[in-house]
């Protein structure tokens, strides 16, 4: 196999020119680099036959299990009460699932639910730069995925995974909520009594698989709300699509006083799953068709 290497001078020159070109391109604003995203989709799709089985094996070996939390009797009591209150919600969900089964049996691959279409997608890989935290799911334009879609994981309660930030022909990229990001996410702590609506929290990813942020102060000075470890926090953010509202962000894992404002609490919220190890997501795609609009109205 040993051969004599012949390099034409042009090969070296092309290499130098290409390097200079790449240096120039790497300093261009993102808006001029959309073509690169398309090329990236092609490369990611081409390596899927390798990355997908390895990912599946990885999810089998290290599943997105629930994070270990400090369990104590108080917390379990709160959870118990919360579960009792959720019983009715689960009953409604069972009805919806029965409807889903009926539709799937009719040969429909995805379902329409409250103006949002649900589509299951496997996580086939991550991006090569692991620090970005972006997940790659096997569903793209061909399946009707848009950047308005959000990803959730089907657990006992739909766990919000993240937002679709890029859609290719057959793949899409999802940025998990636990990835460091300047955008804050607003949630509402779920109360176990009354209407189940607690105070708002403005959360920001810590980079340590959790989010934290200050708890909003109620406008009514008489209104009190005791925040406890284990309480659920659900998405309630107008910046996110309607179909994503109410999805579980996580549970309160720590409550402390804001050092800058002693009147205010800061909570740490941890998702029920390790979002970096989710193997399957359900994409909630806003259904913008005429039928859906009529249904919604």
């Amino acid at each position, binding site marked *: 196999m040993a051969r004599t290497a012949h390099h034409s001078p042009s090969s070296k020159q092309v290499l130098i020119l290409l390097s200079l070109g*790449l*240096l120039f391109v790497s300093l261009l604003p993102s808006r001029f*680099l959309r073509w690169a995203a398309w090329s990236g989709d092609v490369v990611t799709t081409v390596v899927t036959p*390798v990355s997908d089985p390895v990912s599946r094996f990885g999810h089998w070996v290290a599943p997105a299990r629930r994070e270990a939390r400090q369990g104590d009797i108080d917390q379990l009591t709160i959870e118990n009460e919360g579960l009792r209150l959720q019983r009715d919600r689960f009953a409604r969900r069972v009805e919806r699932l029965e409807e889903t089964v009926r539709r799937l049996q009719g040969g429909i691959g995805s379902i329409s639910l409250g103006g949002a279409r649900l589509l299951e997608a496997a996580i086939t890989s991550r991006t090569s*730069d692991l620090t*970005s935290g972006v997940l790659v799911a096997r569903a793209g334009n061909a399946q009707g995925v848009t950047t308005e879609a959000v990803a959730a994981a089907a657990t006992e309660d739909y766990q919000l995974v993240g937002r679709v*930030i890029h859609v290719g022909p057959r793949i899409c990229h999802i940025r998990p909520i636990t990835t460091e990001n300047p955008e804050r996410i607003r949630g509402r702590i779920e109360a176990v009594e009354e209407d189940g609506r607690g105070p708002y929290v403005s959360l920001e990813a810590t980079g340590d698989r959790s989010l934290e942020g200050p708890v909003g102060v109620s406008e009514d000075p008489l209104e009190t709300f005791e925040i406890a470890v284990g309480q659920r926090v659900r998405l309630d953010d107008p910046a996110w699509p309607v179909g994503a509202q109410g999805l579980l962000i996580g549970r309160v894992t720590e409550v402390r006083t804001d050092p800058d404002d002693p009147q205010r609490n800061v909570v740490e919220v941890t998702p029920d799953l390790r979002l970096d190890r989710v193997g399957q997501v359900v994409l909630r795609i806003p259904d913008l068709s005429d039928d859906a609009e009529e249904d919604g109205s």
Partner: protein
Amino acid sequence: MNWPLFALCLWILLGFELSAKAIIALGPTGIAPSFVIPLAVFVALGAPPVHALWACLIAGLCLDLTGRAGGSDAVVPGPHALGMLLAGQLVLATRSIVIRRNPLTLAALSAAAALLTGLVVVFLYGIRSLLFGSVDASGWDQLVARSGAALYTGVTGLLLALVLVPSVGLFGFQTDHLGRGGSRRF
């Protein structure tokens, strides 16, 4: 150099880069080894210089195209490609003074190449951050994470050396005849 074999290995290892890396990452630190860099280093150890640099550039470009800068949607072609090009040059400069067939050589040079690539990537992303204020990967945290990843890449380099070094002949690298016994090293 056997380019189809290089393409096949790159395809497989890029697949691992996009999937296995997340599994063996050290907690939430983002410290994870590269699978592609040891391949590029292996090629740079044995291939003719220009071929080696082309291979490094292609491997780096693949990493750029399959990466997302700092969790944003931006795909920036260049940082990894240029970093690996420099890393390739580093290997070319040192390959005459190392024992190429020793797996430890591939491990050590993979770590060094990953470190150099990481520095270039952080530097270029840092410039992008200054220019555009974008959510790009830059700063000390990145530097620490990539330095840790570089050390970790040394481990994958060692493991891959067990597969790659015996396949020198298949890659078509030129071999040097040593002594009368006809023993070879590449």
